[in-house]
């Protein structure tokens, strides 16, 4: 059979864009993307600012993608999840993927994150270590453009850094400079608090043909000027290099030949017509929900468990950094809503002996008032409607209250559990494609992490002299970090994992699965930088397969 392409990539997101850019020269590449390209960024910004609810999906609503490439971002339910505990993380299916609405925080995982079983007797170990991945982290920071403070981070929590960030750090918000001297040095839960600059994939200077951040404050769900990295940078470059990118093309099946290789895919365009494409190497990188869905949809009589699923692990071990936000009013103004929504964090609770029984967590210091707890419009409404203020008193009170609003968040590690999983729902989307059926249960491990997070937040608020403290009303009240991980875990054993440490399917030698789906455990770092590092690390194996 003659292949149409050397390489077919399923998913035009960050991984697909980076791979295509690096492999474009001399390789016939087709990227198939379920969602649309466009409209222009300014139009999406306009849709956001006039949307009735300022959700992650707001800029992207009201388009045909709501029907033909639906996701949890779309206004109607997408996940089919009958259980009491809900998996709340969302993602975006469009050219550029979820990088359109990610916040852009890119800390690295720390060494202990790779050895949870060895160190804390929970979860599993990764088949590689921090030291193995460290050089790739450095390259990843250059690949997507990270602004950070090398000296501040080098060696922190055991994570040595061999290279500097390509750009100096994003400057701290004014509020960070107010709270840092008051919080640094606090000893809580046997950890020393330190407010640190968060490494961010947003430019602090012109980089990669994109401007420096101008502090527009809407990183999630959309950067109006492209100063925050998004995958369109790589995709546009790949397209210019000759990579073919077909949007509005939902891959519905991977075809496995008798020799175990995947050489053909079927995809359905938004007009409902099915097409096929043939390739010598296939990479599935459609995020951690759509990727297992596709593998499971590709089952046949010969492989009833689905593609790449001899281990039975496809779809299992679904994870997110379940988080809580707490809000308070500080005695002094911190002037939020100026600059990125967060520029600093507290990383001290990302490791410690407590991880044997309780989630580690990463904290972000908000620069967005009360964040998810209450938006500024709702505060204004409260002052108008409840306090019945008007005139200059209203204006003064709006200023007095909102400029002192402050929030802290804790994002907790979720352990992999086989019953937290994605399977296929009998319910279908508008193209007749199954929606994801999600089973998810909150663990006591997370609950204990929430409790510890609440204790820490309360202590920090008290240290700041805060009033009007609004904590999550109970430890079960969590929100999503939208860090969807697991479902195609990597490992060295074909019987317990889906892919090897280079992302190659144990079952199909020319099939690679890349992205957050391959994480065996999730640590507490926002996952994108690790995804990029793993992607760059896999390039060698993919090139070898292409050359074979």
């Amino acid at each position, binding site marked *: 059979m003659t292949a149409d392409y050397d390489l077919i990539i399923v998913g035009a997101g960050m991984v697909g864009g980076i791979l295509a850019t690096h492999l474009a020269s001399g390789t016939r590449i087709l990227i198939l993307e379920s969602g649309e390209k466009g409209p222009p960024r300014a139009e999406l*910004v*306009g849709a*956001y*600012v*006039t*949307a*009735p*609810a300022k959700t992650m999906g707001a800029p992207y609503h009201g388009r045909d993608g709501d029907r033909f490439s639906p996701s949890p971002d779309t206004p109607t339910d997408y996940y089919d999840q009958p259980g009491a505990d809900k998996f709340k993380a969302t993602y975006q299916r469009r050219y550029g993927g979820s990088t359109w609405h990610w916040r852009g925080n890119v800390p690295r995982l720390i060494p202990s994150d790779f050895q949870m079983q060895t160190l804390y007797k929970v979860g599993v170990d990764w088949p590689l270590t921090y030291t193995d991945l460290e050089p790739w982290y450095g390259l990843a920071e250059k690949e997507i453009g990270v602004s950070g403070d090398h000296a501040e981070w080098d060696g922190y929590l055991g994570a040595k850094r061999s290279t500097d960030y390509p750009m100096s750090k994003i*400057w*701290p*918000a*004014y509020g960070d*400079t107010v709270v840092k001297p008051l919080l640094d040095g606090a000893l809580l839960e046997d950890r020393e608090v330190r407010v640190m600059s968060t490494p961010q994939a947003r430019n*602090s*200077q012109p980089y990669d043909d994109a401007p*420096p*951040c*101008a*502090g*527009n*404050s*809407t990183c999630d769900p*959309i950067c*109006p000027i492209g100063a925050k990295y998004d995958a369109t940078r790589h995709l546009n470059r790949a397209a210019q290099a000759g990579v073919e990118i077909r949007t509005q093309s939902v891959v519905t099946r991977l075809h496995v030949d008798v020799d175990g290789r995947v050489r053909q895919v079927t995809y359905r365009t938004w007009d409902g017509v099915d097409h096929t494409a043939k390739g010598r190497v296939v990479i599935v990188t459609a995020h951690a929900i759509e990727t297992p869905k596709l593998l499971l949809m590709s089952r046949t009589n010969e492989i009833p468990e689905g593609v790449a699923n001899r281990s039975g692990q496809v779809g299992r071990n679904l994870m997110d950094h379940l988080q809580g936000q707490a809000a308070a009013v500080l005695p002094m*103004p911190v*002037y*939020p*809503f*100026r*600059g*990125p929504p967060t*520029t600093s964090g507290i990383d001290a609770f990302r490791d410690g002996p407590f991880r044997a029984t309780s989630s580690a967590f990463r904290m972000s210091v908000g*620069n967005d008032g009360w964040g998810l707890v209450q938006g*500024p*419009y709702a505060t*204004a*409404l409260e002052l*108008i*409607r409840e306090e*019945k203020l*008007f*005139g*200059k*008193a*209203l*204006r*003064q009170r*709006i*200023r007095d209250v*909102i*400029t002192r609003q402050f929030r802290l968040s804790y994002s907790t590690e979720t352990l992999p559990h086989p019953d937290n999983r994605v399977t296929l729902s009998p319910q279908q989307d508008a193209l007749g494609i199954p929606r994801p059926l999600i089973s998810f249960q909150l663990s006591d491990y997370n609950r204990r992490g929430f409790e510890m997070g609440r204790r820490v937040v309360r202590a920090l608020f008290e240290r700041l002299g805060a009033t009007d403290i609004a904590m999550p009303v109970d430890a079960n009240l969590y929100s999503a970090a939208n860090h969807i991980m697991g479902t195609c875990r990597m490992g060295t054993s074909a019987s317990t994992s889906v892919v090897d440490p280079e992302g190659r399917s144990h079952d199909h030698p020319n099939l690679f699965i890349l992205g957050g789906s391959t994480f065996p455990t999730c640590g507490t770092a926002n996952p994108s930088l690790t995804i990029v590092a793993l992607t760059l690390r896999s390039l060698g194996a993919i090139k070898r397969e292409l050359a074979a």
Partner: protein
Amino acid sequence: MTTDDALAGFVALSRYLTGADIASDLAAAYLARVKAERFGTRIEPLIALFRSLEQSSTDLESDVRSQIIQSSEHGPLAQQVMLLWYTSAFEDSSQWKFGTPDQHFRALIWPAIGAHPPALSGGYFGYWKYPPEH
């Protein structure tokens, strides 16, 4: 009430209720938005009441509070007018209704708190490290 009188009255009412220098060029669009809502039929009586209080009241703040803000007839609409200027939106049973992008960018809440409207900072890298100038 003539169209001109209604608009002039709406500007005066809005200026008083918000305590801010409202942009009069937005007023016509906002008045039209108010009139298009189900509560819009009550805007001219509210404007007329405010105008009469302006003329006759010896304690305007007290009279506005008692006869408009605390009035079950006029209070809810007055609140919507304030909300419109501060947020560019109406709120009804937790449903928010915004206008145009330009109206979003000109919402009064942002200058009131020394910030900029989301998605339009007009600033330069790092401005957020310093407190606002106003």
